[in-house]
């Protein structure tokens, strides 16, 4: 029997399974966008070392099950083009691509298909995924990040530690408006009812507006057009046995730089406050311990807050626990 260091194996992107000596490899696919040329590698590993199957993970990676642990180093050699193409080439520093994934704590960044394809998306989720991947990988801290193009939140950013939702500032040219009210009716129906008609022209209530861009999509005359891109960040959503809950808005109408900086700062915060006596501590529980104000102080360090940007003063997490002792 092989002598296996479970911790090292897990950190290398493999999994302890319900069969001794048999593992599963997880391929990271930042932003869920993969060049099909890598399919050949994944297919070869599954057929030659695994059970011929691949599992598509909830975080948009590939998991190749049924691999003998004895073959790990061989497989790590085979997957090195994926590490180079998907990680090194986007700026992630991989010390030795031939020894497999250097960390598994920070999970794959998942993303909806974004504005490459989807008409609703307000930004290129694939590109932002890569920028974030470069910033946070490799890292052992258990953090889940997902990017979604618009507030429809198809990627379920609300179930993540950090969820990034695309926004756009709608620009209104009243001279172009024909008063058809397509935007007003639609906003009422599918969004937040931020638009009203006054004197045959449209008024937008910025406090109600979520920057989804629906008005732009519905306007036949382009009276509404795209202004600057903005983002909303929702934080500390999670699944799990203990206290699952939906993420809450931490900031909105912020730019990409602010998003990247907050994510970078989050790792300093975790480093400062993580309970190292535990095998691992998920960031959400750290925030539960420190309180949101401490979290806020850390993650907002050196973050440029634009004139439109709003930061939550208070966040009320819902979710549920099974017994009060979770909290006291």
């Amino acid at each position, binding site marked *: 029997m092989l002598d296996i260091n479970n911790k090292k194996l897990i950190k290398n992107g493999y999994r302890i399974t319900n069969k001794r000596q048999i593992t599963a490899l997880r391929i990271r696919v930042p932003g869920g966008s993969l060049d099909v040329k890598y399919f050949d590698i994944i297919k070869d590993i599954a057929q030659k070392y695994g059970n011929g199957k691949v599992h598509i993970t909830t975080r948009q990676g590939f998991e190749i099950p049924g691999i003998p642990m004895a073959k790990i180093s061989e497989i790590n050699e085979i997957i090195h083009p994926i590490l180079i193409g998907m990680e090194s080439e986007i700026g992630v520093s991989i010390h030795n691509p031939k020894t497999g994934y250097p960390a598994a704590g920070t999970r794959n960044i998942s993303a909806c298909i974004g504005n490459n394809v989807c008409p609703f998306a307000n930004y290129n989720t694939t590109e932002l995924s890569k920028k974030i991947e470069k910033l946070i990988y490799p890292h052992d801290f258990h953090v889940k990040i997902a990017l979604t193009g618009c507030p429809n939140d198809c990627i379920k950013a609300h179930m993540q530690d950090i969820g990034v939702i695309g926004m756009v500032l709608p620009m209104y040219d009243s001279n172009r408006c024909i008063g058809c009210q397509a935007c007003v009716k639609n906003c009422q129906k599918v969004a937040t009812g931020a638009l009203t008609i006054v004197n045959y022209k449209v008024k937008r209530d910025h406090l109600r507006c979520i920057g989804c861009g629906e008005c732009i999509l519905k306007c*036949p005359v382009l009276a509404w057009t795209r202004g600057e891109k903005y983002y909303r960040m929702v934080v500390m959503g999670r699944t799990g046995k203990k206290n699952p809950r939906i993420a809450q808005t931490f900031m909105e109408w912020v730019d990409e730089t602010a998003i990247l900086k907050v994510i970078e700062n989050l790792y300093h915060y975790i480093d400062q406050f993580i309970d190292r006596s535990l095998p691992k501590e998920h960031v959400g529980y750290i925030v539960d311990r420190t309180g949101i104000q401490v979290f806020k102080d850390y993650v907002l360090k050196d973050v440029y807050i634009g004139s439109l940007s709003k930061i939550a003063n208070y966040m009320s997490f819902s979710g549920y626990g099974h017994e009060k002792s979770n909290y006291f």
Partner: protein
Amino acid sequence: MGYSFNISTFNNVLRELSADYIIYAPVKIFNKGVFSDTDLVTYGQIKTLEDIEFEEKSHFSSKEIFFPITQTLFYFTEDAFSLPKISPKKIIIFCRPCDANGIQRLDQIFLKNGDLMDNYYNELRKKVHLFVLECKYSFDTCFCVSMGANKVDRYSAFIRRAGDTVLCDVSVDFEDRFSKYGTYVNMTPVFIESNDIKVDIPEKIPKSIFYHKLWDEYSERCIACGRCNVVCPTCSCFTMQDIFYEDNPYCGERRRVWASCMIDGFTDMAGGNSFRKNKGERMRFRLLHKIHDFKQKFGSNHHMCVGCGRCSDVCPENISFTACIQKLNQAVQSSDQRGLKS
């Protein structure tokens, strides 16, 4: 008279013209497309040749330049009306032959339908001088040849860009400005002579076609958004709006704003009567207006539609105007008129 320019000599002409003219042309506006990270091609003011988008069809026609989407007719204070000022500058529009022909169609409605001339239209329209851009190729939804709108014989200048060379056929009015910077050449305008799409327009449309089932599918497909109307170079309908200033409700203005026969409310009257509630009926109304009624009404030798294909380009439900014309033609041609509803 033909003249040849390089980019910089042509820009000299534009610079001189801009003293007396506001110059519009199709331009590409970065990131102003409807979808994120897409560009918009539309008419905008230009300064140089490089500003002009030669390769793509503009989303909107040029009509908004002289038939503004929102136009103030007059301002009113408690007891008096006053008229809005308009710029003393004249207007040059670089446009393709279809748009140039579209302007003739609008002239018919605003200047020649009924005894009274639309003075607001006329005032802007008479400032307009057309610099027609040569179409190098037909776009995939164009059917200008079928509509006889592929050619223009009256223009102030006809422009062909070939790489860094600009060739112009110039009318007498603009001869001075062009001859100053250009070198004399022979230049014969070339027009598109065939499109991928050809349509046959039925000459006579029997009333029975109004009740044909061919319109039914549009009741299901059309979402009454009006994009087809607003991008059309020949749609001329408008609605009046009286607005008051929020600070002083006794002062305000009367405006006219583009209207769309496809959008709900076009025929609504106070008291509750309205017509063409089905979108299929609206489709029939719009289509026949473009390829039948106008010609019938004015006895002209052309239809209203100029075959620019923009209505097909912009329809979010992928309704093809030309496919609908074909269906109509088939229905008219089939002598037994199968498909008539009882």
